[in-house]
């Protein structure tokens, strides 16, 4: 997985269709900023903090790579179990490092598909310094991954 120094920066450009009543009470749609617009950047900062916390827990051996991605993408146990066609108890065991060691490649592929990553992303984290960008390419149905690192924006 590619880690970037800072999290996503929201540019304030998001607009959505909201229904609003005018002075005469007529209700019609208009393209407007979400009234939670300020919270979008807060949300990204929160996700960045969560990434740091999960990364620390992963490298401290408290959670498995599956636990890392499940936490990062906020996928709950039942949802994940249903997507990978396993029992919740099995998925729960895969969230721990000991349980992760018992997963076969076929199952890892299924997890990788849910998280939209390559199987290789479970095993390697690439940290990009500021000013560097990267492009990834998958092959063999997400089993292997090629990362091209270049100078410039991501």
């Amino acid at each position: 997985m590619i880690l970037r120094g800072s999290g996503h920066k929201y540019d304030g450009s998001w607009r959505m269709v909201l229904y609003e009543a005018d002075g005469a009470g007529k209700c019609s749609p208009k393209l407007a900023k979400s009234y939670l617009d300020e919270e979008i950047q807060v949300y990204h900062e929160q996700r960045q903090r969560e990434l740091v916390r999960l990364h620390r827990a992963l490298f401290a051996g408290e959670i498995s790579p599956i636990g890392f991605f499940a936490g990062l993408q906020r996928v709950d146990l039942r949802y994940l179990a249903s997507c990978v066609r396993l029992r919740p108890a099995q998925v729960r065991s895969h969230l721990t490092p000991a349980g992760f060691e018992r997963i076969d490649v076929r199952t890892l592929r299924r997890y990788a598909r849910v998280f939209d990553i390559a199987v290789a992303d479970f095993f390697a984290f690439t940290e990009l310094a500021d000013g560097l960008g990267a492009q990834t390419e998958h092959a063999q149905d997400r089993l292997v991954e090629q990362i091209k690192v270049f100078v410039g924006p991501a």
Partner: protein
Amino acid sequence: MMDSDAVRTIEGYTHEVASHCETGSVRNLLRHAGVDVSEPMVFGVGSGPAFYYLFFVKGPSGMPLVALRNKPGHIFRQVGRLCGIDFFRRRLRTTREAMARADALIDAGIPPAACVDMFRMKYLPPHLRVHAPMHFVALVGRDEHGYAVSDPYHPALARLGREDLEAAWATGAPMAQDNLLVYVRRVPPRIDWPRAAARAMRRTSRAMLLPPVPSRIVWFAGIAGIRTYARALRSWLSRYRGVPLREGMLFNAVGFEDQGTGGGAFRLMYGAFLQEVAAQRGSEELAALARRMVEHGREWRRASRQLVVLARAIPMVEDEYDDWLRESRQPLEDGLAELSGRFMAFAEIERALWRDLGALAAKLG
């Protein structure tokens, strides 16, 4: 934005944004088929308003989900049934089969709609890219690498890779409508929208009110569901803490006001629908009900904003929560109790609103 040069799109298809993905997709497909209809009309005829307190499904922060919509595909079914529009609406066996079918339709100039996971819609901003496999988009063009997608949440046609569509169309997730493909097969020469609207109003009213016995069994749906939700609000502070509490409260507010609800938990859009039907029929009674619905929608909006104010006060850093709570427990508790009272009042207002609407719709025929 899409590099439209790369993908051939269906001639004559007009993309338009909407506040709800399913109603937006139905409207866009119908307009392409020659039926000029507004999003509120589709929402109303499709019996859009709903309330489910899904105590058995946990949201991203661990709080139960609140659903303000019916099962994906419900609006397509209701609009088809009440207007005599022949929609092909089927979950195909495999994604390959669904994609082959979609390819053939696009080549024939018929845009199909698919029910997909928002997480894979890479053209959406990151804060919207969550695992939610009940999002409707129309496929309006293709080449060997991907599709031109008409997503009601996106300002322009977008591009989606084949691999992404394949993964998004069949997730195996709970409540997902895997490989659901919908398209317009035939539209009748004339659609009696006012009559369809009256029948839909009766249906929506029945679904929201539920007679006493079923509402005891399905205590998490309709008016009974709003009451259950109102009661649950009081227990939040003892059940959740820290960042999950903050995020869960904000997530609820987003659901009521923001993400795909068009504001006011869809009540404002339903108000717009009632206004449109009242104008078509020249009914002053219906116009009065529309005013009540719009005012009620505004109240939902105010309540969700109150939820945001309460949530924003909670610290964003887990370590600060305990100190903060020592000082701020009482105001938060009072705020949640006040909100709970507001939602209890909403249940009563809605009971009267849906009852009056059902009675008026029966009179209108």
